[in-house]
């Protein structure tokens, strides 16, 4: 299990999430931004399920 750096990956995933959320916050309500960010956030959630949820377990 050591060969996969779960904690570092989780940090990058969190950074992606923060960036996407911030982008939506400053979008000024442009739908072309907000709706695509929603999709990006859904994909980021899958990264969390696959990686971030394992922090503290492996």
């Amino acid at each position, binding site marked *: 299990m050591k060969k996969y750096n779960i904690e570092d990956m989780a940090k990058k995933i969190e950074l992606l999430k923060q960036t996407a959320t911030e982008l939506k916050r400053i979008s000024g309500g442009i739908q072309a931004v907000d709706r695509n960010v929603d999709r990006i956030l859904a994909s980021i959630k*899958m990264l969390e*399920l*696959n990686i971030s949820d394992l922090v503290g377990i492996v």
Partner: protein
Amino acid sequence: MKPDEQYWNPVLETLPREKIQQLQLKKFKNILKWAYENSPFYRSLYKEAGLEPGDIKTFDDVRKVPKTEKAMLREAQSIEPYPYGSILSVPLEQVTEYRQTSGTTGQPVYHPETWQDWEWSAESWAYALYAYGFRDYDRVFLPFGYSVNIAFWAGHYAAEKIGCEVVPGGVLDTEARILKMKELRATALMATPTYILGMADVARKKLGIDPAKDLYIEKITAAGEPGACIPATKKRMEEMWGAKVYDQVGATEIGHWGFECQAQAGLHVLENFHLVEIEDIETGASITEPGRRGSMVVTTFDRFAHPCIRFDSKDIIEWNPVEKCECGRTFRRLKGGVVGRADDITKVKGVLLAPTAIEEVVRSIPELGDEYEVTVIKRGDIDDITLKVETAPDYKRNVEAVEQKLVQQLRLKTGLRYNLEFHDYGTLPRYALKAKRFKDLRVKE
């Protein structure tokens, strides 16, 4: 292939058992809290039981959480917000996909998907398809109706996610689908066992195409009904197509929850996304040991719009005696997959009968065709059971010998004596999706 390349997620799929359970408990608490805080249905259910999310601390506590079942979902959907009712746990405007159950057992249950939940559906299928060997070089053909039922929709998006080239065979008829698979040299296929057998039949009889020799299919995902978990049916499918056939299980309310690996030695539960419990059908007692069949109670962890918590699915399952699988996955396995439904298991002449046992017998006799039909009626106080079978297309002689074999095997596998009817090949009903071959007419008489 390097060892880790056989897994969609090598970390999760090979976690030690105690780590998997640690993850499951954390996720169970999370979805319970979410449902309590966001779904009027669940909040009311738990308040009535005097339960709060913080009460759940161990796996033993999980069994204190009230179960749900399809009738409760239907009832909850009779109120606002239409059409999902009080189970809906997100604002209605976040719902981006509509699905519904097939309605085989009554009024369909409506299922809302947000973008995130839909992404989850594809993700869960990706674990299975990757385990079967689907890769980015595969051309995957999907011969289903792309309609309101979930069917293989998530399989479509999971195959895309893996990087496969997906061919939607939606409105084409069976013959056109077969010809398109041949034309495009499709390498993988997803369908119900009934349709997998039916397509092979049409290919041979109507088009003169032998799927095992003239097509390029190497692997098949079989889902939607038992079949790939019934050895005789799986054997027929694999021989007809010259391909490996993998069993996959799921339901609209639950999502995809189990798959076979390439060892084909039972069904792995997708334990990072689900908690599967088995309960004794009559007493409701928990079954944790192998060797005893019971009804599945399942929780889906990470699907938030329409939570599924301790859902009594009525699927009959049994834990596998051997925990370690040669594929290296640590997800616990079921013996033989979903072997029936609690709704279908019925007493005939005082004997518990699972219709899948009849299928196992019929399809293990090469002189018989794939189709069959079972009817139970009451004559006075006595149950009367009739089995209609077809002789295989090229077999016409010596029906008596086949009958003898059938009677013997049925007695051995089901403990019952049947009225047998032999029909010409092609005369019993054919089904495109879920077949209804068992007809219990006793209540109606």
